[in-house]
């Protein structure tokens, strides 16, 4: 009987606070679904069967860990938000005679219901859309061998494990929170004002210094290896800087604005500045999180997209010709020009026998390797009679002909080379390409997947912020109206405030991305991607798409906000 009572109470509570529980449920479902899928893909045999599947799998495994950490942090954030909103309610229950143990029991039930339902729906959706996604992944990996969509028990276990963890942690936090507080405190807790935080100026200065250092190095480093080495460090600096500047820098700026009386005591600025003060004191770190997530999202998606789109170019830069044959003569072995001519002739004949022909056209070839060849540079370089390029001890040529002829000829290369008595190895662009696409396709998939995750989290954070602030502002605007502000003024003020608060993170994110674009180009050179135009284009387009999505999300959530504030 009693148990059913708490369950009923929990159900009633969830129904009553739909406005905040629905996004909570959606967040749980989306995060569990995505997590489940990634786990499924990593553990699936299907992926292992792909060329370089193991490489992709390693990347994914690293992703899973990050993902799990993010999920837990985010679920804690949502939970904290919910509890903050409901403190007064708990206080009331306490006053009405529900003991802490009972409140705790009710909370645990609520948690079970929301998380349980979320995970079940998430997994169900993942199973339905998973197949589709897997096919997409295969496409991205640019090859379609006999891979299958099978999700092993590991995926279920890992997802369940993650959410049991989330459940235990949030429940413990909530129980502790209920236990250490008394009803009266809870009743009045929401009313408590926010004191000015300390060390504002030093923190702002630290923020500016961190940002300056990070930007300086991001804009000046031009050695790929160094860039890759310090990128993570710079990212950490930027995260610290963003947080410090949102939390402390904004307050410093607002204080300065407030000191300029002529500016401050204008109706619009008066309310907007003081409103921003409040916002920044309470939500600066939330905004910083949105900003950092947005930056990560843009950079991840832009980088992986450019790697994928630049794949062909990158391949051609490293391998200007279809086939490369590396000769390894013994120390005392001299390779005479006759031998080379013979190899050249034999290769051409073999190719002709398969219905293909060799060519060595330097026109239209780009990248450092091709330039070396064209300029001769320090290498010993010559064009042999039958369209084979010799550069030092490497023979290179293109193959023209059908795919079958190409494959057939490749298989004959060992037969052609062995008789000449020189140790050799050879590579061909097709097999390298398959490997390369497995890698960059996998990266792209991961990038987009993380992009989606970041986006979902960003959207949810924005949504929750709009709701919290809506409830807070409701009272403020009611007072303003009583004191003699008219409807139009109120609406204008609201718009102004929302605009600033929500577009500040986007603005800063774009600013970070622009600052990072140089170092990204340099880093990608380390991956043999030299086309800066492509990289910048990807960054630009990603920013633009993200901005549009952000705008849409903002418009949709702003509606919720207005609905709450409306009196």
């Amino acid at each position: 009987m009693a148990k059913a009572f708490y369950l009923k109470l929990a159900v009633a509570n969830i129904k009553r606070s739909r406005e905040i529980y629905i996004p909570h449920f959606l967040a749980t479902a989306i995060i569990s679904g995505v997590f489940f899928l990634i786990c499924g893909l990593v553990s699936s045999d299907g992926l292992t069967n792909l060329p370089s599947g193991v490489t992709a799998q390693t990347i994914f495994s690293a992703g899973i860990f990050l993902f799990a950490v993010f999920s837990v942090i985010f679920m804690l954030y949502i939970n904290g938000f919910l509890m903050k909103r409901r403190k007064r309610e708990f206080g009331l229950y306490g006053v009405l005679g529900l003991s802490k143990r009972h409140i705790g029991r009710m909370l645990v039930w609520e948690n079970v219901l929301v998380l349980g339902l979320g995970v079940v729906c998430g997994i169900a959706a993942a199973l339905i859309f998973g197949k589709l996604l897997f096919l997409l992944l295969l496409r991205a990996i640019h090859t379609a061998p006999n891979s299958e969509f099978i999700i092993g028990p590991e995926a279920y276990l890992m997802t369940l494990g993650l959410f049991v963890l989330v459940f235990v942690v949030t429940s413990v936090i909530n129980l502790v929170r209920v236990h250490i507080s008394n009803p009266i405190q809870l009743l009045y807790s929401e009313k408590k004002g926010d004191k000015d935080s300390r060390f504002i100026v030093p923190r702002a200065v630290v923020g500016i210094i961190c940002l300056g250092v990070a930007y300086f190095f991001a804009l000046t480093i031009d050695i790929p290896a160094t860039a890759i080495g310090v990128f993570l460090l710079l990212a950490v600096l930027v995260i610290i800087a963003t947080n410090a500047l949102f939390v402390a820098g904004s307050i410093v700026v607002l204080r300065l604005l407030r000191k300029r009386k002529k500016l401050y005591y204008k109706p619009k600025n008066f309310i907007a500045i003081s409103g921003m003060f409040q916002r920044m004191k309470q939500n600066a770190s939330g905004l910083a999180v949105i900003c950092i997530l947005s930056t990560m999202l843009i950079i991840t998606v832009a980088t992986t997209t450019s790697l994928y789109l630049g794949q062909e170019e990158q391949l051609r830069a490293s391998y200007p010709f279809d086939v490369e044959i590396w000769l390894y003569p013994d120390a005392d072995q001299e390779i005479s020009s006759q031998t080379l001519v013979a190899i050249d002739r034999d290769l051409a004949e073999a190719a002709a026998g398969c219905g293909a022909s060799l060519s060595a056209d330097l026109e239209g070839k780009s990248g450092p390797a091709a330039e070396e060849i064209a300029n001769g540079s320090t290498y010993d370089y010559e064009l042999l009679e039958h369209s084979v390029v010799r550069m030092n001890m490497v023979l290179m040529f293109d193959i023209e002909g059908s795919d079958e002829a190409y494959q057939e000829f490749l298989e004959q290369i060992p037969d052609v080379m062995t008789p000449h008595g020189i140790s050799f190895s050879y590579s061909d662009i097709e097999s390298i390409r398959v490997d390369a696409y497995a890698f960059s396709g996998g990266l792209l998939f991961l990038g987009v997947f993380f992009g989606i995750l970041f986006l979902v989290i960003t959207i949810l954070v924005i949504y929750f912020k709009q709701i919290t602030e809506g409830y807070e502002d409701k009272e403020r605007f009611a007072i303003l109206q009583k004191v003699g502000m008219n409807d139009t003024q109120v609406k204008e003020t609201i718009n102004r405030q929302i605009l600033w608060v929500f577009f500040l993170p986007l603005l800063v994110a774009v600013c970070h991305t622009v600052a990072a674009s140089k170092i990204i180009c340099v880093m990608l050179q380390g991956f043999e991607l030299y086309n800066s135009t492509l990289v910048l284009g990807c960054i630009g387009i990603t920013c633009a798409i993200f901005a549009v999505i952000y705008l849409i999300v903002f418009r949709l959530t702003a509606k919720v906000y207005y609905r709450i504030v409306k009196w």
Partner: protein
Amino acid sequence: MVQELLRCENIKKVYHTKLGLQSYTALNDVNFSLAAGEFVAVMGPSGSGKTTLLNILASLDQPTSGNVLLEGQNFRDIPEKDLAQFRRDNLGFVFQDFNLLDTFSLKDNILLPLVLSQTPVKEMERRLQPVAAMLHIEDLLTKYPYEVSGGEKQRAAVARAVITEPKIILADEPTGALDSKSSTNLLQIFRALNESGKTILMVTHSSMAASYAKRVLFIKDGAIYSQIYRGEEDNHAFFERIVNNITVLSNGGVDIG
């Protein structure tokens, strides 16, 4: 003859449920007028229509029928978009729960109506000084509402109400959330304000609060039931009379006298 400041003519307010199936009459034919320099308390039991009346006088709500005139200007003739401005210029409000904004320091809370009227900064500061001094909050101006006591908050709210030099101050249960010491303090301030020429209309539950007024209107079931003037009486004697009147009021008016 004292100049008439505010006049209510046959005010009636009927609330309808959403579908209009049921109606509830909150005010039924209220008539009274207020002369400049008066300090009037409106008393009545819960549900008698006090707050509805105050909202109508504040132009926050419209009567179903009847007119409110401030210095001869009918509220009905003021266009909706100018109402906020009208309120700002002519009426000062003091609320039970202070209605101070936590985002502003007390100083900024007090200046808020002036800022909304786009008063020059110098003028604002010139006006702030005497008001703050009179309400004894000069030392608290940089504090935030959550840092000061209830009495101090209410004094700041009064400062906000008077800084625009309104024609009339409307107070809704101003002592409702205060302890007795702060209440007395606030009522003395009201009296001082009144003596300096301000017109005050205060809605209250408390006979003690009402005893500071010069005239008390009793409202019951949506109509003015009776009124008494202080005359030359002191607080204590006036308080006695108010209490007696309330007794009559709650006895259903059988025993008049």
